[in-house]
């Protein structure tokens, strides 16, 4: 997929890829974009154009992930973005899926036990994701933030903060695994009578949450985590 550039018209980009709407919303950009370019809009909202574009482009292109570039952004920018994605999951995506799932279960034949099981499966997923977000907010992000402030304090300007990042391999993320199982199980093992339309709505919701979380995790494990371990070394 071609990349998005600063001089492109934002409205055209969004029309072409409506899945970007929640992403730009996270940056505070709202619809009613007019004919303004990406650059103009970023200036108006006082956003770092480079950062916004990197996020948009990695979101659109599964293969595009400029690790070196992402690591040049400030820790607080990254944390801020990850926090906003977390909020989006909690406030919109989870409740959306839940709403559809609840009507899916109640509108389909009562006593279809499969569906109740899917409901339970989803609740256990929700618990896990909520717990992770809570931990992010209370422990992990504040820790990263504090570390980065400490580095800024003790580092002279001549060291341009070239962090020695280790190419750490990430393990399978349990949140991603749960979502992919949930989707796979519905597709493969659904049985009995059920409401097709609501079923699709649920799977669609799960699938777009899955895509979003994958992007979140890429930044989390391949950018933030190595940044933090590099800062930890530097501070010793």
């Amino acid at each position, binding site marked *: 997929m071609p990349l998005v550039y600063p001089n492109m018209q934002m409205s055209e980009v969004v029309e072409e890829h409506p899945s970007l709407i929640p992403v730009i919303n996270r940056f505070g950009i709202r619809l009613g974009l007019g004919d303004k370019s990406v650059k103009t809009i970023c200036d108006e909202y006082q956003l770092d154009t480079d950062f916004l574009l990197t996020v948009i482009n990695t979101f659109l292109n599964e293969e595009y992930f400029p690790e070196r570039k992402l690591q040049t952004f400030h820790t607080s920018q990254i944390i801020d973005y990850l926090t906003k994605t977390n909020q989006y999951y909690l406030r919109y995506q989870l409740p959306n899926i839940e709403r559809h799932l609840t009507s899916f279960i109640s509108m389909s034949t009562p006593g279809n036990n*499969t569906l109740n099981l899917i409901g339970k*499966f989803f609740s256990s997923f929700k618990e896990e994701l909520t717990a992770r977000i809570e931990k992010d907010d209370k422990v992990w992000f504040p820790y990263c933030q504090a570390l980065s402030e400490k580095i800024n304090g003790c580092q002279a300007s001549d060291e341009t903060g070239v962090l020695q990042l280790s190419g750490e391999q990430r393990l399978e993320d349990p949140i991603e*695994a*749960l979502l992919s*199982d*949930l989707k796979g*199980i519905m597709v493969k*093992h659904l049985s009995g009578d059920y409401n097709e339309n609501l079923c699709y709505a649920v799977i669609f919701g799960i699938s777009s949450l899955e895509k979003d979380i994958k992007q979140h995790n890429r930044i989390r494990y391949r950018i933030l985590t190595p940044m933090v371990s590099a800062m930890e070394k530097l501070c010793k």
Partner: protein
Amino acid sequence: MHKTRQIAIILSDTLQSIGLQSLLTDYFPPVEVCWFPTFDAFNAADCNDTFDYYFTSSETLVMNGDFFLPRRSKTIVLIDGAEGDGGISTTNHITVKASQEIIIEQLQQLLANDNSGNLSGDTNKDLSTRETDVLQLIVKGITNKEIADKLSISLNTVLTHRKNITAKLGIKTVSGLTFYAIMNGIISGDDIEL
């Protein structure tokens, strides 16, 4: 799950190679394509036998019959003609002057030949008795070590069983496995809490 096809293109024509490569990546993923301008370069790469298919020209084929003839079923020759021309149907070929639609059809037929691997993979999705035993214990939340003790098998064997279960069912998490087990009557829903 499809296996990635390893493809070697041995053609001196750069544009032809690029075109072929983009058709293969666009229409027949997942593929991994290596391009060699000459047979010598191909030989030098020292990975001759790792490929599933070889695309080459008839000249290269004739000049290097020793290599290609034993691999005839994997070799595809680009011949200079439209559809129906040539008539040398003993070798696999695609006709470079045919329309894109026809070339894609030709590639489809050629690449469809080797479903042998896929088919055998598909037939054996059922869990063995032992795997079912292990699954029953996993979903009860018992640790690998305890499973090993209960079934009097080694920890490594438990891990292998787990790996095979995940591979066969395509389910990675305990919650997913639990759901599968209940749905398929491997355990009763009352036994556990999800």
